[in-house]
């Protein structure tokens, strides 16, 4: 069995191409498992942050530091990107490759927008507020938790960009569909983590 030609596969693409092959089903299952591990990872980071959030030493406190408008904007952008990735998967289920790629591109742009705001925020803190990794236990916990999430967003942006390239080259097949599907799962996961960061880090820091 040599690999079926891309066009042939597209013409007869099954309803849920991501689960059409054993490899695809394995990939989706293993990715759910992986996200379970990621949940523990972020859970531990959150626990660390909660344990250290009052330990500001001589540095600024959360209340002095955070400006909710910019964080709210970042949150809005990231949540919308989750919606656009849903549109992408719906397009994939309709077998519409063009629409799929388009929505993935929108998702990547929104992800880049989020990253831009986060980098701006970090630079502001470091240059104007003298709030760096070494300032206090609170600052270390803040940069580690939020930075880990940011690194996840960056990884997702690069990953989905590569997938857009693959789709252009190979088309929508039972090989590429699972990859797109798990990348969307990943993207939802980091959005959910951000909802917790928004609540636990920023809202609690402002009012808690």
């Amino acid at each position, binding site marked *: *069995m*040599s*690999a079926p030609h891309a066009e042939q596969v597209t013409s007869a693409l099954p309803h849920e191409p991501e689960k059409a092959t*054993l490899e695809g*089903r*394995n990939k989706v*299952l*293993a990715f759910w*498992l*992986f996200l*379970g*591990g*990621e949940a*523990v*990872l972020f859970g*531990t*980071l959150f*626990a*660390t942050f909660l*344990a*250290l959030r009052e*330990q*500001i*030493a001589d540095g600024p406190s959360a209340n002095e530091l955070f400006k909710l408008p910019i964080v709210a904007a970042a949150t809005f952008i990231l949540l919308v990107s989750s919606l656009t990735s849903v549109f992408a998967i719906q397009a994939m289920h309709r077998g519409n490759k063009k629409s799929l790629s388009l929505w993935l591109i929108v998702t990547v742009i929104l992800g880049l927008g989020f990253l831009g705001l986060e980098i701006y925020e970090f630079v502001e803190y470091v240059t104007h507020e003298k709030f760096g*990794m*070494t*300032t*206090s*236990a*609170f*600052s*270390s*916990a803040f*940069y*580690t938790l939020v930075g880990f999430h940011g690194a996840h967003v960056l990884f997702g942006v690069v990953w989905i960009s*590569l997938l857009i*390239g*693959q789709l252009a*080259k*190979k088309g929508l097949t039972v*090989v590429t569909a699972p*990859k797109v599907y798990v990348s969307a799962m990943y993207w939802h996961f980091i959005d959910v983590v951000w909802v917790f960061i928004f609540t636990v880090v920023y809202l609690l820091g402002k009012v808690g």
Partner: protein
Amino acid sequence: MDWLTTVDHKKIGILYLIAGALFFGIGGIEALLIRWQLIKPMNDFVSAQTFNELITMHGTTMIFLGVMPLIFALMNAVVPLQIGARDVAFPFLNSLGFWTFLFGGVLLNISWVMGGAPDAGWTAYTPLSSKLYSDTHGVDFYTVGLQIAGLGTLIGGINFLATIITMRAPGMSFMRMPMFTWTAFITSAIILFAFPAITVGLVLLSFDRILDANFFDVSEGGNPVLWQHIFWIFGHPEVYILILPAFGIISEVIPTFARKRLFGYSSMVFATILIAFLGFMVWAHHMFTTGMGPVANALFSISTMLIAVPTGIKIFNWLFTLWGGQIRFTAANLYASGFIPTFVMGGVTGVMLASAPADYQFHDTYFVVAHFHYVIVGGLVLGLFSGLHYWWPKMFGRVLDEKLGKIGFWFFIIGFHLTFFVQHFLGLMGMQRRIFTYLRGQGFDTLNLVSTIGALLMGVGVLVFLFNVIVTTRKPAGAPNDPWEDGRTLEWSIPSPPPEYNFKQIPLVRGLDAYWKEKMAGHTEMTPAEPVGSIHMPSASILPFVMSAGIFVAGLGFMYHQYVVLVLGLVITFACMAIRSLYDDHGWHIDPEETTEKGVKE
């Protein structure tokens, strides 16, 4: 070259076996050096600093680089065969997991020649492991090396979970799975939920040391007890990652050599799951003396003691399996039978330690050292030796010499009890753990001498096993499919060693102990579940090796603040990921007429 690129789970199992045995040997030599230092009072065989490095590296090496890979070796060699699969779910990831573990282990061990090994104990408690008290690069090697090795373990765990969930042969429901596969499954689940915690802990510690963060620095608001919580949230489940596969091995070996089905199979499954669940609830019993308060201490005491219940279920099930069986004491079964009383002794001292008020006396004495060696060596290592004797013919096509196996067993188990039994009393008399010497006339002299002699005997036992391996390997291969004649599970229904594709036709499973069931029905082989056809195989790949090498380079760069090197390493790794992603690999096929000659491993 073949070995660098292989994605065959059986070969990866052998790689894990070789690498694990190597690190086990290093850890064992470290243990002997420790015991030699303590053979007499005021010994000056090694310095205090070297002693700290030895105990740290002994613990770290044995746990992460010695016994865990040996468990993975057996899991790789056996689990796909037991569930009637041709391979694991992700052969590529399997290879990646191995190489990441190996490069992490190598990184940790080159610390010996790169300016000092880690010296803060295998638990690396802050502030002992902070820059203030440990100013060499030793602990950096610990954080980065374990991080890389842990990544490999996590990958392996996810792979086995997916394999066992999706790749079982037709008819093999979860409640027909062999016990070893069950324990491999549960162990992988614990790995999945425990390892990310140590990942975070190691990140925090390396940030403190390398980027001057303040997680554990009290003067800037940090909290050292936080490290203990994170470490033991991982560390306690880790104990069950280690012991459950041993339970699985014992549950395979005893029914085979008692010629009876395992007593209470479903209660064994239930007990395994319950132990795994409780294992996550009890981490703070390592921290009774940190001042958590009586309520927390009481809760963690009680939840810890609860684990004795499912463990007791298992012990009695093994005894009832032996009861009335036609027992054959082969070397594998000697190790399995020796396991039972030894592990019970370790369990009893565990319940003693679980009592918080008593723990204030036992804490950081040799009583604790005796306890965990009874569980890990008397439990896991005896289990591993049992499993190695049992599955050696399946892995290599040669049966290990029985006489040498038995001689090795007696050296090992007598040496073991001599070494660690007396340590209970040393602890009760007040000898602390981790001290590099002691004064004359405290009553420690004789017992320490006995302990060291025992350790040497254990070393002889291991050497006898090695000798056995060499002797056996020089003999011609020729083990039959089912060398023990009473094999119960699917791996015994195919040749030893299995051909590259494992099963020519995927078998149909008609009950628990699938192969035994067919034998009792008068059949000599399994009923196939599919017609003879061409078999799809994954392609070999060098990428896992290169990716792991990239992570290794990046880790060194991070440790030494050489950010160019760090970026270079990451680029290598991510480039490999991109290549893997962009170029589809469709594997290759073995045609039906070729199956007899092709793919049969030499």
